[in-house]
């Protein structure tokens, strides 16, 4: 039976949470496409194979010294080796930093279509329709793949994590992997800062809509101080140097779960929401009634943050 093959993601000897979500996605696609879920473990020595086999009926390992660190070159060769050796219909990859780095290269190596950044699948007579976010989350689109095989990448959180339970088979696929043209030297921390916003119970966060550094300080920092909380920001605010990187919330910043998260002038891009959706109460202040942030907020005010926030300061007293 054809397989829907998850490419397991792992770092420092552990599978990523996203990998368990991909196992769930592969199961859903497989049942729609009359295929069977499976996973590939590409690593130095295959030591996570038994762990991975708890989530899928079949695990294929490619083990090679050149797979010690993730690289697009080595991963693409290894995926190709598994697809050549086994009957694989689709390859599913996390839409993570590593996933984005190699998924399109795999599609090129297989000569097949890729649908990236998916959040949902639907089956129509064995044909899979992929739903994905576009236009900063304002519009969704559906796509299908025309080629025999496909590659799809999935947004973090699109599927629940698959439960451990099974004990799948483990099969080694032999392949000789040539050295990558990119060499990994080290992994460094870039956000170490004096403040740890992840401990705050109240966070006031400002986005590009705060306009400039002075205005950001004026409204966001002052409201945070008034509420006895911390101030934080979306990525463009940090990119522009209005506040420190240690205060960035999101996929490439901090994950926070305060009691109260106030998002002002933040549109609610998926990469931002990834870092704050676990907050107990979310307030969105945005002049655009269609901003995606309103889809996850508890309370919303559609309006100009430069009018609303001073009025809040007054109401707090």
């Amino acid at each position, binding site marked *: 039976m054809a397989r829907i093959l998850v490419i397991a993601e792992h770092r420092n000897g552990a599978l990523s949470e996203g990998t368990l979500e991909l196992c769930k996605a592969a199961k859903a696609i497989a049942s729609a496409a009359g295929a069977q879920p499976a996973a590939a473990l590409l690593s130095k020595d295959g030591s996570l194979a038994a762990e991975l086999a708890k989530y899928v009926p079949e695990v294929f390992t490619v083990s090679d010294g050149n797979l010690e660190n993730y690289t697009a070159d080595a991963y693409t060769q290894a995926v190709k080796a598994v697809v050549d050796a086994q009957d694989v219909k689709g390859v599913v990859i996390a839409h993570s930093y590593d996933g984005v780095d190699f998924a399109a290269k795999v599609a090129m190596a297989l000569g097949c279509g890729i649908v990236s*950044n998916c959040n949902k699948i639907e089956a129509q007579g064995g044909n899979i329709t992929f739903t994905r976010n576009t236009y900063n989350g*304002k519009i969704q689109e559906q796509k*299908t793949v025309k080629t025999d095989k496909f590659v799809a990448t999935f947004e973090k959180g699109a599927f629940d994590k698959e439960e451990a339970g099974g004990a799948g088979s483990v099969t080694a696929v032999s392949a000789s992997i040539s050295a990558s043209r990119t060499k990994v030297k080290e992994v460094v921390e870039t956000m170490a800062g004096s403040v740890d916003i992840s401990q705050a119970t109240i966070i006031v966060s400002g986005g590009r809509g705060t306009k400039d550094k002075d205005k950001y300080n004026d409204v966001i920092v002052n409201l945070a101080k008034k509420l006895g909380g911390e101030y934080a920001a979306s990525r463009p605010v940090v990119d522009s140097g209005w506040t420190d990187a240690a205060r960035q919330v999101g996929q490439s910043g901090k994950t926070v779960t305060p009691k109260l998260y106030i998002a002002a002038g933040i549109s609610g891009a998926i990469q931002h929401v990834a870092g704050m959706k676990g907050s107990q109460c979310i307030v969105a202040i945005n002049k655009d009634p269609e901003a995606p942030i309103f889809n996850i907020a508890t309370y919303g005010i559609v309006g100009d943050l430069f009018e609303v926030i001073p*009025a809040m300061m007054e109401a707090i007293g």
Partner: protein
Amino acid sequence: MKIVVCVKEVPDMESKFKIIGDSKIDESQIAFKMNDFDQYAVEAALQLKEKFGGEVMIVSAGPERVAKEVRQAFAMGADWGIQVQDPEVDAGDSFVVASALFGAIKTIGDVDLVLTGVQAEDDQAAVTGVMIADMMGVPHCTNVVKLDVDGKNMKVNRELEGGKNEVIEMAMPAVLSIQSGMNQPRYPTLPGIMKAKKKRLDVKKAAEVGCTAVGAAGSKTSFVKMFFPVSDHKAEIIQGDPKAAAATLVNKLKNEAKVL
């Protein structure tokens, strides 16, 4: 150093979007701009040129109006460019667009670096740069936040989740996708804008850059439909003028959500 930057025109995301017949956005309602991420790529290229000399070329695919974004990159300091203007490319998927951009890059020849933004704000696919690298037969690195160049060798920081970077060594020629925040993109100056008007912009059809994968036939994926997301959760929108709404909100935070 010969550096190509791929630039895409995208809608301003604060535009009021209207979908026509489940299949396209009503472009008459939309203001267009340069993809944010691409501005960082243009700036990175200009900084390399300032340091090491050479030339910065802009390559873009899209209808006539896209020339505005290419000329903005010219006004920032890029030297010249190629616009693949072909409805058959616009009708294709990422693979078709990558093939067209690759074709244009090939006509330039001996390119050391190709820079792209990490993704387009409209498609959010993040695949085109990687495809171009594969077509060129050169290595790539995505989500680049730092770049040190020494001759043909590069030390590149690739962004990872949660504020980490992976430090990578690689050599030119290569394709890098540039992440926001890597630099502070410059604003075009008035003299820059004047000069940009006279810079060379070659307008080509797909076939003229040797690109044969075009349209739906050349695509590897098919578009089905588009729609506004239906959320099973919507915020409780607090009505009233800013003063009244703010007062109601503070009251609810204190007495209903009990978080203040």
